[in-house]
């Protein structure tokens, strides 16, 4: 079908003003905020693959009509909400269509009996949280993308928040959902606290990254704002000691909402005046009903002191709370300095996570010629293991190709090392197009299940083609 015919159809359904064809806007929507593209843009990168148009969807009925049309005409389409992806998951193949749900932004219901909130896909998380706070509730979900992210995208990327050790990831928060399948059927998963009715269908959508359809509405849990909060920081000499402390705390059954371990490089950068040379930093926030936070706080403190951690008081936490999302204000600062900089988060069992951290830090420092820094922190912990959030920066020759080569080298080391120790290549940023090349190794024999799911839900292979499963 000709591009003009396609656009004419969408204009008939949505109105002319909600079918965007402006080239500048298409260029802006051609990618996400992946660190690689940030620096490449600084070196002159522009996408050669622009979408035909961006569709501003306002209702589920419009989403159904649009999905039916694109399926019948086999048009590749990219669902999108806040645009805060960091794995090239929002890159637009040529002649694709962006299904933008960011204007579906109504909060439908706050249910104070069942402790849920139902919101359309385009509701910004920040708005949702502020609305809840006014009523004495919280979503318990605070990803670093909080100022940008919207509800549909958070579910589609299996997001997690900085207070996850208590509240869980989005998979623990999602109660019900409404979405449109690639073939145009509107489907609804009703709200229930738990059920035993076959596979949990919510998990088809959680982490689907637009490959199985578009999410139009979500219902998530809400919590009472905590009555009490205890914040405490500790200095430790070895990163592994910090991991051991966290392991002991969570395996004892405590769940400090914020449980973070920063290595010596990050600790010096953010908490330099509090620590001695080469010390790392542990940060804990315990919160909940009156009495609970103090109880948990004491238990956390006892474990830390047992491991000879040094108390730093609560000030580092005050600083962390105030500045934890600053990066969103100056995302392209490193790019302007000509540095390839990004983050990469992986997870592994307690038996392996320390090995991955040590090997990545050591290999990147040895093998990347113009490395500026490579650091790591653990920020989401579980009874069985934890994550490491690597941050890296390296200089390169000022060209699009050199930036990609450096980026690939560092990312490659992290992915390779993680897989070597049976870790997972993505803890919460998702797969996108960038990490899809490692998915076969990540999933092993279960990769077949993912391929079958994709072909069952999206027989024409049009939904966000290239994410999760690379285009062959």
């Amino acid at each position, binding site marked *: 079908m000709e591009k003009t015919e396609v656009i004419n159809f969408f204009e008939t359904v949505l109105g002319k003003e909600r079918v965007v064809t402006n080239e500048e806007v298409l260029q802006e929507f051609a990618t996400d905020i992946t660190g690689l593209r940030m620096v490449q843009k600084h070196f002159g990168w522009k996408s050669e693959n622009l979408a035909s148009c961006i569709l501003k969807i306002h209702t589920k009925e419009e989403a159904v009509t649009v999905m039916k049309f694109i399926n019948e005409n086999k048009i590749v389409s990219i669902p999108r909400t806040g645009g805060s992806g960091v794995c090239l998951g929002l890159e637009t193949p040529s002649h694709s269509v962006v299904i933008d749900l960011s204007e579906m932004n109504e909060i439908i219901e706050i249910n104070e009996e069942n402790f849920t909130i139902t919101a359309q896909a385009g509701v910004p998380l920040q708005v949702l949280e502020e609305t809840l706070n006014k009523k004495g509730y919280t979503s318990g979900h605070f990803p670093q993308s909080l100022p940008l992210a919207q509800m549909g995208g958070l579910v589609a990327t299996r997001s997690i928040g900085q207070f996850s050790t208590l509240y869980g990831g989005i998979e623990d928060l999602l109660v019900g959902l409404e979405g449109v399948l690639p073939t145009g059927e509107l489907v609804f998963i009703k709200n229930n606290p738990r059920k035993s009715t076959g596979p949990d269908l919510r998990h088809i959508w959680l982490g689907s990254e637009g490959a199985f359809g578009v999410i139009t509405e979500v219902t998530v849990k809400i919590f009472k704002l905590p009555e009490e909060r205890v914040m405490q920081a500790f200095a430790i000499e070895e990163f592994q000691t910090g991991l051991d402390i966290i392991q002991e705390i969570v395996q004892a059954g405590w769940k400090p909402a914020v449980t973070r371990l920063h290595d010596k490089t990050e600790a010096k*950068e*953010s908490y*330099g*005046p*509090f620590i001695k040379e080469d010390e790392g930093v542990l940060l804990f926030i315990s919160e909940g009903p009156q009495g609970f936070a103090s109880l948990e706080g004491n238990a956390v403190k006892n474990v830390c002191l047992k491991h000879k951690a040094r108390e730093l008081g609560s*000030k580092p936490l*005050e*600083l962390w709370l*105030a*500045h934890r999302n*600053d990066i969103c204000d100056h995302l392209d*600062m*490193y790019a*302007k*300095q*000509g*540095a390839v900089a990004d983050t990469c988060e992986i997870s592994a069992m307690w038996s392996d996570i320390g090995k991955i951290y040590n090997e990545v830090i050591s290999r990147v*420092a040895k093998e990347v010629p*113009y*490395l*500026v*820094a490579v650091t790591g922190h653990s920020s989401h912990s579980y009874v069985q293991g934890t994550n490491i959030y690597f941050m890296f*920066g*390296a*200089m390169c020759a000022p060209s699009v190709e050199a930036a990609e080569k450096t980026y690939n080298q560092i990312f490659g080391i992290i992915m390779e090392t993680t897989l070597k120790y049976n870790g997972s290549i993505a803890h919460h940023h998702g797969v996108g197009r960038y990490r899809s090349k490692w998915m076969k190794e990540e999933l092993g024999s279960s990769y077949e299940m993912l391929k079958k799911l994709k072909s069952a839900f999206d027989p024409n292979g049009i939904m966000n083609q290239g994410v999760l499963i690379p285009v062959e």
Partner: protein
Amino acid sequence: MKIISCIKQVYDLDIVLENDWVVDETTNKINIDYANLIMNPYDETALELMLRITDSSKDIKTEVITIGNKKSEAILRKALAIGVDDATRIEIDHELINNPFNIAKLLHHKIKDDKEVKLVLCGRQSDIFNHGQTGQILAEKLGWSCFTNVFNITYKDSYFNVSRTTSSGIEHIKTNNPLVVTVTQSPNMFLRMATLMNTMKAKQKPINFISKELSEISEDTNEKFYNLEKLTVEKSKKNCIYLNENKNKSINLQLSDLINNSLNKGVK
């Protein structure tokens, strides 16, 4: 030829929490000791400009100077790691350098006899006292030209080409040397990053050290230090007003009225 960039270590004020801007009346200070020490952002831009000059003229030698205690060597090492040839630290009692005159005097003492020096770059002001005078006083003492608010400077055929902002626009000046420039920040100018390898190497490089008493270099015994009598913190009041288009007044006009009313009331 040699170029010198004067750099200063300051607290990272972006880190300081709003509620901590409280003056301790016994010490007349604000406790911001928990903030990291960084290079003054204006000095970072000046340093980057210096390095850009040497990127295209390899035979120019570069040096950074700071006045401060041992801790301030961190910024000198950072400068060495990104390609500066030499670094000098002038140590003096911190209380004696809380004014631009004494700072300029120390810098003048270091620079005046070095005939190789043709350009000195200073940040327009430091983040901590905001006097914004050191560069000008230094130029006065050296008897050199001085250009303020410089955002770009290049070197070609023995001349410096200076770009600076003024209240009426931008000036591009071709100038002879020696000269002093005070550098302002520009949105897309960032200090280059040091690679890990160069950071490690810079830790081993020597730093020149000068320890001076002001009296040793002062020619005028009547000079007095500034004394900080009182420090106050003005809390800014933030307010959010939603403007809606209405038949009687456009949003532009409503905004204009709001700004004018605020100015009349002395609101900043």
